[in-house]
C-alpha cells in the first residue's frame, strides 16, 4: 500500500499560470517545460498526504486556476474601476496563496493537533522547470516513453492505461492489477505516468480519504462523511467509522475509513485514480472497437415471453431507449412477483443497450447469485463478452461490455455504464447500506439508466414511484400463469415445552409435515428466525418426522454451518425432503415441488413483510407443481404477516384482472 505524498505548486507558463499537486515535481516540470521552456514552478508545500494536498488545491484555487488561467484579465477595462483594479503580478499571487496555505494548514492543525503535518520552513520554493527536469526541455517524444507501460497491440502506453482505468475508480495497486488482467504490464513508475495524464486533464487524482472542511472528513471511495468532534483528536481513537492514528506508511497523522475497509484501506495518504467511462470512450480507440463488436447482439435460448413479461419487456425497452427528455426519470422499479421471470424481461433491454454500443451492469447483492447467474446470461448472450466480478473472481478488472457484479465490487466503477440493473434490490447487504447505494449510483454514466428489480420493494422505492420520481413497471403474474400461493396464517404455538424443560412439536405442525411428506416428491422449507432456534428446534423437528422416513429426511442449516452448501445441494437434488433454515435461504434455493412453513412468523425483528413474501415465494415456482402450500405459524398475527398475505393477494388479483392467470 504505497503512500501518496504530494506537493502543492503553482507554475507560470508564459502569460498564464496554473496550480496543481504532484508527488514528483520533476515529472510535472518535464511536461511543463515542453509548454514553456522558461516556465517556473513554485512549490507551496512540502510533501503532504494527498488528502490534505487535494483539499488545499481545491479550496485555494478555482477550477480555472487549476486548468490554467491567463495572468492578464482579458475582460474589457471598465472606465473608472478598471484604473484601480490592476491585474495581480504572478509573484504577488504566489505570496498570497502561500500565506493562505499556511493559514489553512494551521486551521487543520487545530483539529489534528500541532505538528500533524511537516514543517513549512523554506516554502514557497521556486525552481525553473528546466532545472527540475534536467536535460530534457520540452520533449514530447520522451514523455510518450515516460508512459512506462509496454505497448499493447495498436494502442500506445497511455491508451493502455486509459483503457484499463476507463470507468473505474482504483487504487494504484488495483490499477496495476487491472493492467495485468487486460494484458499489459506496468513497468517503471506507474504513478509518474498517471501524474502526466492527470496534468493533461485525462484522469482525476483523488485522495481515498480527504476533507470537505478542516473538520469534516469524506471517504472519496465510499462517500462516507464524518465530522471530527470538537477539540484536537487523539490518535488511536475512532468515531463514526473514521479512525485516527499515525500512519505506519507515511508517518503523518492519518484517518482511516472503516466503512469500506473490507475493500482495501482508505486513508489520508492513499491516492485514488478515476476516469469517467464517457471520457475514456472519447479518448480511447479500444472502446470504439467494443462498440462495433456489440452491434449485432442477439438473444439465444431464451424461452418466449408470457404476455405479462412481454408487456413489461416492451415498457422497459422503451424506458431505456437513448435520447430521453430531461424531465423523465432515469430510474425504474421493476416490481415482479416471485418466480415471474424478471431476468428474461431485462435481457431484452440489456441487449438493446448493448446493440447501441452501450455498456451494461447486472448487479446483485450476493456473490453466490453472481456465480449462478453468469453462465445463464452467457448462454443467453453468446456473442457478448461477459465478466463476472465478485470477491475471489480472477477477472475483477477485465473490461467487457456486460459486467455481472456484486454490489460491493460496483464500488470500483465510476460512471461506466449506460444501463445498471440491480437485482434483489431489497436484499441484504444492499438493503440499508448507504455505501452500496452510492456505489450503484456512481456506476451509472450521466444520463444512463438504473433498473431496480425486486419482488418486495421497500417503502422508499414505492414512495418514489408514487411521486413519479422513478418509473414503475410491474409483472403481477408468474411465468407459468398460476397465482402465487397465498399463505395460510395459523395462530398456534409451534413448540410445546413441558415442566421438565423438554420440548415437543405441536400436533398441528407434526400433522402438517406428515401430510406434506405423504405427497409424492414434495419437499418442505421450514424457516425459523434465528440460528439459535434452528439449532434448538432442528433436532426436535427431526424427531417429530422420524416416523415417516430415515433421519436424513430432515436437514437443518444456517449461515454459520460449515456444511451449509452440502446440505443445500442435498435438498436441491431431492436427497433430503425437509430443510430447516433461517432467512439466509429465502432466495437461494429453488426446488420444483415445495411447500413452505414459517415457524415463529411473529418474530418481527427478522421476519418483515418482504422476508415473509420471499419465503412464501419458494412455493409453487415450477409449471409442473404450481400450487404449493404456505403456512405462517405464530402465537399472534403481526402486521408484517397480514401485509405479506395482503400483498400477495393484491398482486394475484391484479394478475387475474389483467388476464395473466391463464393457468387457473
Amino acid at each position: 500500500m504505497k503512500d501518496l505524498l504530494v506537493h502543492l505548486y503553482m507554475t507560470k507558463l508564459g502569460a498564464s499560470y496554473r496550480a496543481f499537486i504532484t508527488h514528483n515535481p520533476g515529472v510535472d516540470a518535464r511536461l511543463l517545460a515542453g509548454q514553456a521552456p522558461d516556465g517556473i514552478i513554485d512549490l507551496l508545500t512540502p510533501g503532504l498526504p494527498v488528502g490534505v494536498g487535494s483539499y488545499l488545491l481545491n479550496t485555494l484555487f478555482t477550477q480555472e486556476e487549476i486548468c490554467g488561467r491567463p495572468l492578464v484579465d482579458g475582460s474589457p477595462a471598465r472606465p473608472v474601476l478598471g484604473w484601480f483594479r490592476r491585474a495581480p503580478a504572478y509573484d504577488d499571487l504566489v505570496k498570497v496563496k502561500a500565506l493562505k496555505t499556511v493559514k489553512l494548514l494551521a486551521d487543520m492543525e487545530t483539529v489534528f493537533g500541532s505538528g500533524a503535518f511537516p514543517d513549512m520552513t523554506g516554502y514557497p520554493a521556486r525552481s525553473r522547470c528546466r532545472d527540475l527536469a534536467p536535460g530534457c526541455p520540452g520533449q514530447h517524444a520522451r514523455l510518450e516513453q515516460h508512459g512506462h507501460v509496454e505497448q499493447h497491440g495498436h494502442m500506445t502506453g497511455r491508451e493502455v492505461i486509459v483503457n484499463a482505468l476507463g470507468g473505474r475508480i482504483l487504487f494504484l495497486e488495483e490499477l496495476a492489477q487491472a493492467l495485468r488482467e487486460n494484458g499489459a504490464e506496468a513497468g517503471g513508475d506507474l504513478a509518474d505516468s498517471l501524474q502526466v495524464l492527470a496534468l493533461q486533464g485525462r484522469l482525476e487524482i483523488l485522495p481515498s480519504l480527504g476533507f470537505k472542511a478542516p473538520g469534516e472528513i469524506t471517504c472519496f471511495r465510499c462517500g462516507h462523511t464524518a465530522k471530527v468532534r470538537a477539540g484536537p483528536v487523539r490518535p488511536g481513537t475512532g468515531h463514526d467509522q473514521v479512525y485516527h492514528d499515525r500512519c505506519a506508511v507515511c508517518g503523518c497523522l492519518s484517518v482511516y475509513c472503516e466503512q469500506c475497509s473490507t475493500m482495501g484501506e482508505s486513508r489520508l495518504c492513499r491516492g485514488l485514480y478515476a476516469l469517467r467511462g464517457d471520457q475514456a470512450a472519447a479518448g480511447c480507440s479500444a472502446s470504439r472497437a467494443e462498440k462495433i463488436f456489440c452491434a449485432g447482439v442477439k438473444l439465444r435460448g431464451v424461452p418466449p415471453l408470457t404476455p405479462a413479461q412481454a408487456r413489461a419487456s416492451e415498457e422497459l425497452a422503451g424506458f431505456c431507449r437513448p435520447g430521453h427528455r430531461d424531465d423523465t426519470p432515469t430510474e425504474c422499479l421493476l416490481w415482479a412477483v416471485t418466480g415471474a421471470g424478471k431476468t428474461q424481461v431485462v435481457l431484452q433491454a440489456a441487449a438493446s443497450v448493448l446493440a447501441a454500443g452501450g455498456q451494461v451492469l447486472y448487479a446483485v447483492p450476493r456473490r453466490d447469485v453472481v456465480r449462478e447467474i453468469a453462465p445463464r446470461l452467457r448462454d443467453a448472450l453468446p456473442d457478448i463478452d461477459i465478466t463476472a466480478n465478485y470477491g475471489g473472481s480472477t477477472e475483477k478488472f477485465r473490461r467487457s461490455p456486460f459486467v455481472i457484479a456484486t454490489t460491493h465490487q460496483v464500488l470500483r466503477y465510476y460512471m461506466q455504464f449506460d444501463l445498471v440493473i440491480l437485482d434483489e434490490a431489497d436484499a441484504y447487504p444492499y438493503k440499508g447500506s448507504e455505501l452500496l447505494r452510492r456505489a450503484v449510483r456512481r456506476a451509472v454514466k450521466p444520463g444512463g439508466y438504473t433498473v431496480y428489480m425486486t419482488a418486495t420493494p421497500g417503502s422508499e422505492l414505492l414512495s418514489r414511484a408514487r411521486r413519479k420520481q422513478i418509473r414503475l413497471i410491474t409483472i403481477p403474474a408468474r411465468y407459468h400463469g398460476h397465482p402465487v400461493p397465498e399463505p395460510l396464517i395459523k395462530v398456534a404455538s409451534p413448540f410445546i415445552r413441558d415442566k421438565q424443560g423438554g420440548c415437543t412439536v405441536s400436533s398441528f405442525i407434526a400433522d402438517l409435515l406428515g401430510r406434506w411428506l405423504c405427497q409424492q416428491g414434495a419437499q418442505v422449507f421450514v424457516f425459523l428466525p434465528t440460528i439459535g432456534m434452528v439449532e434448538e428446534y432442528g433436532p426436535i423437528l427431526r424427531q417429530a418426522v422420524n416416523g415417516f422416513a430415515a433421519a436424513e429426511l430432515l436437514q437443518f442449516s444456517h449461515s454459520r454451518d460449515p456444511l451449509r452448501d452440502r446440505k443445500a445441494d442435498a435438498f436441491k437434488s431431492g436427497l433430503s425432503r425437509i430443510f430447516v433454515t433461517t432467512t439466509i435461504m429465502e432466495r437461494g434455493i429453488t426446488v420444483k415441488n415445495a411447500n413452505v412453513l414459517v415457524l415463529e412468523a411473529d418474530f418481527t425483528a427478522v421476519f418483515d413483510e418482504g422476508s415473509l413474501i420471499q419465503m412464501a415465494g419458494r412455493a409453487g415456482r415450477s409449471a409442473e407443481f404450481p400450487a404449493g402450500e404456505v403456512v405462517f405459524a405464530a402465537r399472534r398475527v403481526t402486521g408484517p404477516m397480514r401485509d405479506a398475505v395482503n400483498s400477495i393477494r393484491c398482486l394475484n388479483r391484479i394478475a387475474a384482472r389483467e388476464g395473466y392467470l391463464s393457468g387457473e
Partner: protein
Amino acid sequence: MEIMKKLMDLVFPPGMECPLCGAETARDNLCRKCRVKMTDRRGFRSCNLCGRFFAEQASAAAGSLCEECRSELPAFFPARSLGPYTGELKEAIYLFKYRGRRSLADGFGQLMAGLFLDHPIFACADVLVPVPLNREKILLRGFNQSAMLAENMGRILNLPVNACLDRIINTTSQSRLTGRVRRENVKGAFVPKTAPGRVNVILVDDILTTGATAGECARVLLEAGANSVGVLTLAAGVREKSVLSS
C-alpha cells in the same frame, strides 16, 4: 419520521456504536453482549502454562499442563488469553487484523487490561512489549495489531510500552505450519533493539497458536536481561488431539 428522529437525537443524543455489532452502547467500546462473546470459554479448559485450550471432554482435572508443556517448558511463564481462537472471537480478530478495523483495538485493549487484572500472577509486571512485525508486513497491513493492543492496554493500566524487539527476518506466515516447523520458522527472527533491563515483561500478541513466536520472543528478551516474561493474547489456539493431565 426522519425529522422526528433528528429531534429525538438532539434531545437525547445517541450513544456510541459497538464497533463489532453496531448496537448502541453507552461506553466508547464494545457492547456488553460482544464483550461476553469475546470472553466466552464455555466447553473449554486451558493449559495452566501456555494457556492453549482443549475441548472439555479431552481434558482431565483443573490445574493441569498440556503434553507439550510437560515435555518442554516454554520460555515464558505463563500465557493467558481472552478465549479460544474459534467462533465470534476468531471472526472479530479477522476483522481487526485483516480487514483493517482499527477501532476494535480500543475494546480489545480494555478486555485484555481486564484479563491482566484478573490474574494476580501478572501483578509484578513492569513493562508491555508488543510482538514486532516486519517492516514489509507493516506496509502491507498498515499497522501492527500487537502494538495497538499494547498501547491501549498501557494507557488503561498505566504501564509503559517498550517496543524493544525487532523482527529481522520476514518469516513465512505461521498460520499453516505445524508446531515444530513453526519453531524452526521463527528461530533467529527476533533481536532486541534495546536492552529491556531487569524488568518483568508482559509480551502482547493477537493469537497464541503453538506458542512458537511467543517462546522465541521470550527467549530473546530473557537473554537480553529481562527478569521474567509473561504473555497476554487475544486468543489462544485449540488443541483437539492432546490431553491435559495433572
